């Protein structure tokens, strides 16, 4: 015979409470609370400048208007990218010069100490140059992009973007707040994966996670900017060059958004079927940010972040690449051997084996893809000093690059699998190996398909 456990007292109470209650209890409770709030406010709050109340609304009437809503968003994006590109050139080359100057002293010191060549190779040509490259190429654009972005964010512009874009996301079966998580992706996809927590519906959150990668993160901006300026804007000079570069990068971002919406749409009709859940979006009042505070904080935070990543990821990757490029099998290096075996497949995508290998070795962090590529290209087997962009372009041209190669590399960079950190975060957030794998395979498949089609269509059209 079993002793029955007495029912929980709370269950009893609840049952009793429910016999008392009727359908609109919540409404009554909330109404009473609101009434109390209103009464308190009526007695404690006075408005002395009524016209000031409508400032946010007046601005919203322009920023989210039928006529200006989208043009303003596009203009904001273009201006931020333009300023980033225009402003980063000089500090980038200054940093590169500075690191080159230090390298001279390091080389001198190694010679003085009679250090063996392999040690010099690993430490200076691999580790030091790898880190220096990442820092000088990454830091300036990020130190411009993020403060501007933070100013817009603190001012309160992001919710307006979500408001303007909502219909598009709804049509593709995604959550309206996905545009907020995408905006976070501009900074770092790994962090953006965490920010998808603002989407409560698991289905829509998964959509946001799987597509976040189509927003270029700070590891990929420099690749996009550099290739756009070297190859797409090659025929232009001065201000126009920056302008065209910015235009190409903006086009890339827009293409990423189109892919995001398309993929969301397809997924919400197939693997992640369902209707968009309801939601409400608050548009907070615009608040003038503390400008210097925001700029200094955003710059410092990002600088520290980039530096940390450079040391944690770029440095070991630099060492590894140097080793691969200096171990010989027969009369070729391991690096060259891998690159050559990837060649046939890569050519189908309009790339080459070195590019593909750089993407593969760059899995831990997108920042190091370009440095690895350059190291692969150089027969010396070490990262090149980026003294002038002209030298850089010559390296690419020597390896048979055309504007199509650059375009394909940009597309592949925009669309391919997320970096290792992002994948780890996806696994932490989804707790699913399957979805993490999909988050890897889906973008990769799209990257391969898009570059394949681009290459073959352009070749077929005889444009190259």
């Amino acid at each position, binding site marked *: 015979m079993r002793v029955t456990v007495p029912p929980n007292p709370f269950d009893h109470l609840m049952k009793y409470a429910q016999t008392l209650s009727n359908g609109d209890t919540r409404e009554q409770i909330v109404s009473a609370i609101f009434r109390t709030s209103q009464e308190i406010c009526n007695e404690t709050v006075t408005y002395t400048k009524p016209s000031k109340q409508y400032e946010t609304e007046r601005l919203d009437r322009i920023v989210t208007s039928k006529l200006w809503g989208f043009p303003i968003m596009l203009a904001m994006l273009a201006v931020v990218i333009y300023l980033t590109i225009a402003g980063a050139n000089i500090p980038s080359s200054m940093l590169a010069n500075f690191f080159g100057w230090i390298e001279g002293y390091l080389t001198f010191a190694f010679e003085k100490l009679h250090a063996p060549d392999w040690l010099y190779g690993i430490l200076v040509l691999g580790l030091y140059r790898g880190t220096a490259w990442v820092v000088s190429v990454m830091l300036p654009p990020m130190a411009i992009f993020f403060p501007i972005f933070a100013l817009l964010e603190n001012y309160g512009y992001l919710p307006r973007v979500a408001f303007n874009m*909502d219909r598009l996301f709804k049509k593709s079966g995604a959550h309206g707040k996905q545009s907020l998580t995408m905006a976070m992706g501009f900074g770092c996809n790994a962090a953006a994966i965490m920010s998808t927590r603002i989407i409560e519906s698991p289905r829509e959150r998964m959509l946001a996670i799987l597509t976040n990668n189509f927003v270029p993160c700070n590891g990929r901006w420099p690749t996009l900017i550099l290739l756009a300026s070297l190859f797409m804007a090659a025929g232009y000079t001065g201000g126009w060059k920056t302008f065209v570069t910015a235009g190409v990068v903006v086009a890339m971002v827009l293409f990423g958004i189109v892919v995001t919406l398309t993929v969301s749409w397809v997924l919400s009709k197939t693997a992640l079927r369902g209707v968009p859940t309801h939601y409400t979006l608050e548009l*907070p009042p615009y608040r003038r940010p503390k400008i210097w505070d925001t700029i200094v904080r955003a710059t410092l935070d990002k600088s520290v972040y980039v530096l940390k990543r450079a040391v944690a990821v770029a440095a070991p990757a630099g060492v590894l690449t140097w080793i691969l490029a200096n171990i010989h099998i027969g009369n070729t290096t391991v690096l060259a051997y891998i690159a050559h075996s990837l060649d046939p497949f890569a050519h189908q995508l309009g790339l080459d084996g070195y590019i593909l290998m750089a993407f593969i070795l760059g899995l831990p962090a997108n920042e190091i893809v370009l440095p690895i590529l350059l190291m692969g290209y150089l027969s010396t087997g070490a990262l090149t000093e980026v003294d002038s962009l002209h030298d850089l372009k010559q390296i690419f041209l020597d390896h048979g690059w055309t504007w199509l190669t650059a375009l394909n590399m940009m597309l592949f960079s925009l669309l391919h699998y997320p970096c290792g950190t992002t994948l780890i975060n996806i696994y932490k957030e989804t707790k699913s190996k399957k979805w993490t794998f999909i988050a890897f395979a889906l973008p990769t498949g799209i990257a391969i398909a898009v570059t394949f089609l681009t290459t073959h269509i352009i070749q077929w059209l005889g444009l190259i």
Partner: protein
Amino acid sequence: MAPTKFDRLSEAEPGERFRIEKLDIEGTMKRRLLDLGFVPGCEVTVLQKSPLGDPTAYKVSNTTIALRIEESSNIYGERIRDDNE
């Protein structure tokens, strides 16, 4: 009971005010709307529509909240046409 004698919030035009009488929405969404101030008896001002026509921004309880048509068409009440703020 069919709330036919009331207007829908979605029918109110930007600039108009609207007094809420009834929310014909169930579950979490209703509770969320209540929390935000879409409470029977309260007044809402229609601010403006998104460039693509939906959602619409509303001023409620001195804050701006955007709702999609799915919600606003199930909020019933009375349009207040004489706009003399």
